């Protein structure tokens, strides 16, 4: 074997190892990426089902076709040169190709994603459906690995202890499905840190990883209806929020956003600036004789443009 062959072999082994991690331990990241890409392209789909209470065959066909279109677009890797981890997460993601028929069934039997629950945004409903759909797909394709089994049999008794302790203190058990919420994952993590911080299997496990285990392997949570499940899981971690930015970086991003607003063309710039006023642009609309619908349309355009321009020059 030449040196070059050896190097290629090493790179390939490292890649396989990383891709395996994105199918198992880091599955939440893979699922997060596919979900973000799907939701990003879902405006037309959500428009199709907005406010629909009954789905006939024609509509189901349209939904399936639209899901297929989104899937094909969302599951196409970028054509540029990818970094090793980017390549690995994409390889893992390709194993979880969406089945339009199954997803259509989930959508037509859920009210939130069809905009029939005023307190839940359609996109939030879609995220919950995708999360549950991908977890089920992962169970089908990967099952439970030996390592996951070992971790799971450790986590479950800790969860029992925490839940029983609550029941002893308050005289009643937690609501069904509580095991799978983020709050319980934090409680389990806290218990581990307090009592077994050096445990080889679970000592360093993150709260979000604990939540992943319950989402995937806890029967109690799987028996809940999608709606009940959705209520306990108000959404994914705040991937699209500002939670991942440090205060300094958030300030820097806000400064940059202000600069980008200044660079917008008219009337987009004025519309954004007006929307930031306490009256949310009411005075501007009156002055300009602009309908509210048109104002919202321009604001949406401006927001998209700002999204495209955000991010420092590298």
């Amino acid at each position, binding site marked *: 074997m030449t040196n070059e062959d050896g190097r290629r072999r090493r790179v390939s082994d490292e890649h396989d190892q990383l891709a395996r991690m*994105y199918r198992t331990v880091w599955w939440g*990241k893979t699922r*997060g*990426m596919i979900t*973000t*890409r799907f939701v*990003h392209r879902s405006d037309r789909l959500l428009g199709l089902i907005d406010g629909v209470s009954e789905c006939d065959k024609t509509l189901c066909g349209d939904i399936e076709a639209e899901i297929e279109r989104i899937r094909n677009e969302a599951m196409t*890797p*970028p054509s540029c040169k*990818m*970094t090793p*981890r*980017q390549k*690995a*997460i*994409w390889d893992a*993601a390709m194993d979880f190709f969406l089945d339009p028929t199954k997803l259509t069934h989930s959508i037509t039997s859920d009210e939130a994603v069809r905009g029939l629950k005023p307190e839940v945004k359609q996109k939030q409903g879609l995220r919950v459906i995708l999360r549950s759909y991908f977890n089920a797909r992962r169970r089908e394709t990967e099952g439970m690995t030996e390592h996951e089994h070992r971790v799971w049999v450790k986590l479950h008794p800790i969860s029992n202890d925490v839940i029983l302790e609550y029941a002893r203190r308050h005289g009643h058990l937690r609501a069904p499905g509580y095991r799978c919420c983020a709050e319980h994952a*934090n409680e389990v*993590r*806290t218990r581990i*840190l*307090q009592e077994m*911080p*050096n445990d080889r299997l679970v000592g360093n496990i*993150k*709260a*979000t990883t604990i939540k992943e285990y319950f989402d995937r392997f806890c029967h109690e949570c799987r028996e809940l209806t999608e709606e009940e499940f959705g209520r306990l899981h108000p959404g*994914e*971690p*705040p*991937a*699209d*929020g*500002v*939670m*991942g*930015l*440090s205060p300094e*970086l*958030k300030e*820097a*991003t*806000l400064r*940059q*956003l*202000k600069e980008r607003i200044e660079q917008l063309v008219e009337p987009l710039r004025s519309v*954004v600036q007006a*929307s*930031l*006023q306490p009256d949310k642009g009411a005075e501007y609309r009156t002055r300009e004789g602009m309908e509210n619908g048109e104002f919202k349309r321009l604001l949406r355009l401006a*927001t*998209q443009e*700002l*999204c495209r321009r*955000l*991010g*420092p020059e*590298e």
Partner: protein
Amino acid sequence: MTTKSPMEKLLEEVLALQDEDGRGAELTEERLRNVLLGRDAFTTHEEHLLMTSPLARSSCAEVREDLRLEGEVFIERCRRAGIKTEVVLPLAASGGQDPLDRTVVLLPHDDCPVKLHRHPRSKGWIVSLTLSDRLREIIGPDGWLTLVDNQGVTWLHGQVNSYGEIHSYGLPSGGEDPTQLVRREGLKLRVRPG
């Protein structure tokens, strides 16, 4: 709960529109932990990832939440063990003599006494911490500790050595003179993990 400004809300809306092409996977949890614990700083490229990748932000939020939990548990374990996690400078107890006239200042504590001593060959100060056995047990053999005052200034940051000590040079952060800092009324140093 803090109220978000209109600009912050707009920023959230803008970030919510971002797509993910997998680049965010490059920002590993190990790296995020190092930066969030103050052992390193984000590069421009990493800041770019955080501004533009929902996956990178999500990973960062997860690690931050985990560190918050670890911090809470550390305080709780110390509380249970009867370890105080604050070090107070006893200016009043020094019998009227200003302890800062000396080249070595000792801040006594049952479990983590702090020693400030002038560097022998430079103008800077060395901050040292010696951990008791019970605090070492909580921190773990290769644990990291940070000493921060009530103004948010970092005094010491480092990994416990085999003698149960941590030494820092070049701190307090922000280039401030510790002899001035310790004169502040009500100064308290708080020990936190990481």
